[in-house]
């Protein structure tokens, strides 16, 4: 076998073998984590969906991840527009500072947030979960969206203006459709990061449970096969999200759907 093939096989084994074990045991009827398997069963899924604290944690995770992904894309878009179109010392400094949290150990961010919350007497809870996760996702989303806007040919906007479109029309018909796949892609990235963020959320959540916290607390009470069912859901969720977003990401070319809309 060629070296590249060997590397490929190792990569697949390292990345996917542990995941495969988790998924297999999630559907295993037995209550222990040992071979041989004891038949197909959905009992662990039934168990966790019957658990109210699981549903609550799942709901919280989905809610916070959705809010975080939308917020980080909006903030990153505004910031990247500013950075790409007004280059000066201030924006360059700001863009550097905005990327810094990605290089800091998350535990530092967690401790800093926790201390700040205590100092300003802000109660932990859902709002702080969102804020903490934003700190994690923003630098990544900003990097992706920023790179797209750097590449963006400003002559396209000039051409649109030149052809009679005012600024808002230009944004809606030219700029936005061209950068949409990037926005959707980075929103997905932010969703995935936020959905299973544990370290910082652990410090900012107070009594509000999220899915990773739920798994973590379950594990502390000893291995329980239902954790495998939760993990399987956690693995499936981002894949599902990517699948749903596929049409947007692939649609680098769309026809001018706005053509008719602007006729009035």
């Amino acid at each position, binding site marked *: 076998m060629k070296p590249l093939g060997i590397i490929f096989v190792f990569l697949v084994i390292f990345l996917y073998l542990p995941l495969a074990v988790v998924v297999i045991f999630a559907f295993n009827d037995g209550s222990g984590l040992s071979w041989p398997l004891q038949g197909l069963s959905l009992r662990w899924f039934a168990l966790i969906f019957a658990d109210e604290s699981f549903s609550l944690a799942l709901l919280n995770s989905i809610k916070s991840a959705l809010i975080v992904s939308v917020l980080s894309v909006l903030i990153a878009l505004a910031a990247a527009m500013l950075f790409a179109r007004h280059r000066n010392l201030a924006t360059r400094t700001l863009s550097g500072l905005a990327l810094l949290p990605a290089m800091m150990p998350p535990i530092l961010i967690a401790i800093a947030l926790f201390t700040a919350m205590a100092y300003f007497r802000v109660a932990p809870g859902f709002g702080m979960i969102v804020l903490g996760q934003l700190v994690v996702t923003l630098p990544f989303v900003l990097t992706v969206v920023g790179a797209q806007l750097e590449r963006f*040919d400003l*002559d*396209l906007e*000039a*051409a*649109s*203006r*030149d*052809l*009679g*479109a*005012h600024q808002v*029309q230009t944004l809606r*018909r*030219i700029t936005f*459709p*061209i950068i949409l796949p990037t926005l959707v892609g980075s929103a997905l990235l932010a969703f995935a990061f936020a959905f299973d963020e544990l370290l910082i959320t652990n410090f900012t959540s107070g009594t509000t449970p999220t899915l990773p916290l739920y798994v973590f607390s379950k594990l502390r009470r000893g291995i329980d096969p239902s954790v495998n069912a939760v993990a399987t859901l956690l693995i499936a969720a981002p894949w599902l999200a990517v699948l749903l977003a596929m049409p947007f990401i692939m649609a*680098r*070319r*769309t*026809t*001018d759907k706005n*053509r*008719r809309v*602007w*006729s*009035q």
Partner: protein
Amino acid sequence: MKNSVPVKARRTGGRVEILGISKRFKSASALVDINLVIEPGMFFSLLGPSGCGKTTLLRILAGLEMPDEGRILLDGRDITHEPPERRPFNIVFQRYALFPHLTVHDNVAYGLTTERRNRPSDAVIDHNVDAMLSMVGLEWAKARYPGELSGGQAQRVALVRALVRKPDLLLLDEPLSALDRNVRHQMREELLRIHAELTTTFLLVTHDQDEALSMSDQIALMNMGKIEQVASPATIYRSPATLFAARFMGAGSFVRASLCGRSGGRIEAMIGDMKVRALDSGVGKATRLQLLVRPEEITIVEACHPHSMSGQVETRSFFGSHYEVTVRYDKGLLRVRTSRALDTGEAVCLAWPDEVGIAYADE
């Protein structure tokens, strides 16, 4: 080739006046007190080396850049502060700037769909787009995307996208620079054909003197944010007004000379110990001169005589109907046109007529 200003009485509106336009970027001046009039129907070129301010002037005309001083009038109306979407001027961008997410049809149609009031019906738009695309032979490419077009095709789409609004002035920003040589030739002819067909005023920005000379009715030669000369291609080539113009047009070689007198509107100058007369470009009080000597003004003779200088052939280029050789003489290089196939290294005598070229003050 169109060298004289043709009569184009068909178009009456769309006279553009540029009055005292200045623009500074950070510390550098991009444009200094530019004054120009572009008559309707003309093929006008802004010619100059890169960084001379010609593209800035184009962007100011389009409304994409605001001048620091000066005004732009369209048929006497001040449009200096109109936003780009309200000016009846359209641009063909250097790198085309076709909308990558729209088909060729929708790219061309774009300029007709932006009007909120008086937007034409879809049928009218489609009809116009088809007519425009057929003018450049691209009806078949309607459903294609810009990424699927060749450079020449993209250029044609960019051209008709700008023309679909029937602008008073079409601004072309180095439209041929990104094209292969062959395609460039076709495109040049196509531009002239379309210009003749539509009688729209064309303003071409270019750094290529051949391009400007072969297509324009009038050329404004620019250097360092200023206009050096505005004239017809023939005038600008035959009698460049400044030393820069003479050098940029690449019309001939330059010979250092010193002023020794004037007679009958001509300059008398000494090249070494040889006396020649030359046209005066306005040298004023300068005594050190540069004479523009054209390749066809000097003849190569068999035997040297007092009004000649000896030299040695350095290079020879074949131009079909004639050769052009560069001859090294004791003060530099001269380009000379000849019908003889001289060999490199051959010793020759260069005979000077009594009157040669144009005299410029040496900088």
